[in-house]
């Protein structure tokens, strides 16, 4: 009988061909999927060429140009072309061209490419997003990804697991984004360094998949190597009809050893904003009303999914963005974009004077499509607020949920949906 293990340990053991592993052990694993984007793939492709010249399996290598596409400048166009040419040459099945692509960590779960029990590395730090589906997924650099693409293998140090238990009921208006910001505020940006996070508890179980993906997405912002959520009926319902490969639902053993357990009462979590310049610099949104903003960004791999768009639209319906604010809405995939049209959300955004963009990571990392000038402030549903993250090094980024970002866009300063004037009946009836 193997020793009791966490779900992270079980996934790693299974992919290393071992009955058991323990934290600290260095192992070599077979990978299910390896991914890279237009910023990281060119270096990974160089590595593939140096190691073997061929990808280990064209169906298990994923290339998603999403950071600087549609191409933002000539250099970006050259990088995207390297990725496109390589995908064609190697017959990579999961290459997503502009028009089909989306922000990678929204796109791949939506398309059923990633599934429970998978071991995935990606040359993008937010690869940890797929933990919400019960996969062990972690960000790496281009060399690790390139070697993974060429060999199908990667080395891992088995991480300890930090168990996060969120029990109780989240108040209305408190979302998965607030849960993860609250946690990062509690444990710090290196609170789970070299460790895996596992999110459990009745409040997590009650969350829809889109909000779970937001939580796992930001595990890296606590230094985490992965951010796993046990597979349950919500996970299965999401994967059914999407994931065509057989998948495996791993659960932590009841007597598995955790590095520590962080217990959070769901009732203690309020709509939360992370102030510059660290995601851990959190405060209740209600204490941020003095912060005037120039821009609001609603989108990204953290909050660019359909539920996020619905939550933003619910606030913006019948209202208009403050004249001093640019509000940029970026549905994260083509499917989310189309759904926004079909559900009338696009009309809400346009009526509110939002700019709506085709999918791209763009402004989140200060690439394009919403760069900040010196001294400007943005509220964003993205994941990082480091110095210079969205533009000039003297600009500032405040992180929040879609509802708080939408309310702030209308108010002209950070605030909550309940701060808004009720929508006039005439506008409602239209």
């Amino acid at each position, binding site marked *: 009988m193997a020793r009791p293990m966490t779900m992270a340990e079980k996934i790693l053991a299974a992919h290393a061909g071992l009955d058991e592993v323990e934290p600290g052990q*260095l192992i070599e694993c077979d990978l299910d999927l390896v991914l890279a984007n237009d910023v*990281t793939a060119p270096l990974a492709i160089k590595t593939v060429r140096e190691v073997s010249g061929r990808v280990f399996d064209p169906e298990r290598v994923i290339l998603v140009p999403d950071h600087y596409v549609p191409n933002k400048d000539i250099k970006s166009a050259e990088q995207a072309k390297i990725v496109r040419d390589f995908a064609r040459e190697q017959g990579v099945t999961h290459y997503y061209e502009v028009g089909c692509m989306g922000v990678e960590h929204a796109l791949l779960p939506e398309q059923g490419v990633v599934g429970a029990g998978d071991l995935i590395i990606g040359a993008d730090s937010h690869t940890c997003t797929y933990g919400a589906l019960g996969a062990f997924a972690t960000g790496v650099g281009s060399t690790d990804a390139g070697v993974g693409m060429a060999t199908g293998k990667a080395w891992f140090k088995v991480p300890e697991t930090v168990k996060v238990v969120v029990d109780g009921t989240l108040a209305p208006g408190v979302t998965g984004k607030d849960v993860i910001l609250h946690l990062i505020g509690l444990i710090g940006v*290196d609170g789970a360094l070299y460790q895996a996070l596992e999110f459990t508890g009745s409040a997590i179980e009650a969350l829809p998949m889109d909000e779970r993906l937001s939580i796992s997405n930001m595990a890296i912002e606590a*230094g985490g190597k992965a951010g796993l959520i046990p597979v349950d009926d919500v996970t299965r319902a999401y994967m059914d009809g999407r994931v065509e490969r057989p998948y495996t639902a791993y659960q932590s053993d009841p007597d598995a050893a955790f590095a520590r357990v962080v217990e959070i009462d769901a009732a203690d979590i309020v709509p939360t904003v992370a102030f510059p310049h660290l995601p851990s610099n959190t405060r209740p949104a209600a204490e941020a009303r003095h912060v005037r903003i120039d821009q609001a960004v609603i989108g990204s791999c953290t909050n660019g999914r359909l539920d996020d768009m619905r939550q933003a639209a619910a606030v913006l319906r019948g209202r208009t963005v403050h004249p001093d604010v640019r509000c940029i809405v970026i549905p994260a995939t083509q499917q989310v974009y189309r759904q926004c049209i079909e559900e009338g959300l696009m009309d809400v955004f346009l009526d509110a004077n939002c700019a709506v963009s085709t999918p791209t990571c763009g402004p989140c990392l200060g*690439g394009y499509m919403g760069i900040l000038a010196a001294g400007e402030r943005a509220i964003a549903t993205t994941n990082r607020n480091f110095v*210079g993250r969205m533009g000039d090094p003297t600009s500032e980024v405040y992180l929040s949920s879609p509802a708080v970002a939408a309310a702030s866009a209308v108010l002209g300063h950070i605030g909550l949906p309940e701060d808004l004037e009720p929508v006039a009946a005439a506008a409602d009836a239209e």
Partner: protein
Amino acid sequence: MEFKGTVHRYGRDVDTDVIIPARYLNTSDPAELARHCLEDLDAGFVGRVRPGDIIVAEENFGCGSSREHAPIAIKATGVDVVIAKSFARIFYRNAINTGLAIMECPEAVDAIADGDVVRVDADAGTITDETTGQAFTAQPFPPFIREIIEAGGLVPRWKARLAD
């Protein structure tokens, strides 16, 4: 490997966005990346740094994005080694994979001041502050990671393995 140089000292949570801002990620050219290394944190760094210099920082160096451009940019400025209290895990892997020497040594970080001249023996794991005369020993690497470092990075190690 032995290194000796002047220390550029920084605080905790030095993220990869300040090591190399995303506005320069439309290229992978090391020399061009080096021209903008750390500019949002310390605009004078690129002008002051000399080949062989050493970066010393507190906890969680290299947090944030997985961009390998970060260790590449640092290495291309001529910095040979980064000493920190701890490294963010993706940066840790990227540094080893790309051949940028890193050392974890909280005691040395506490003692070393900006501008000190420091000598490092990466194989022995020793750090000597020649300005103050103090000596420290860094956390040793596990043998497996040592193999990658000694091979010159992950790619040379795999090439050797596939050639066997």
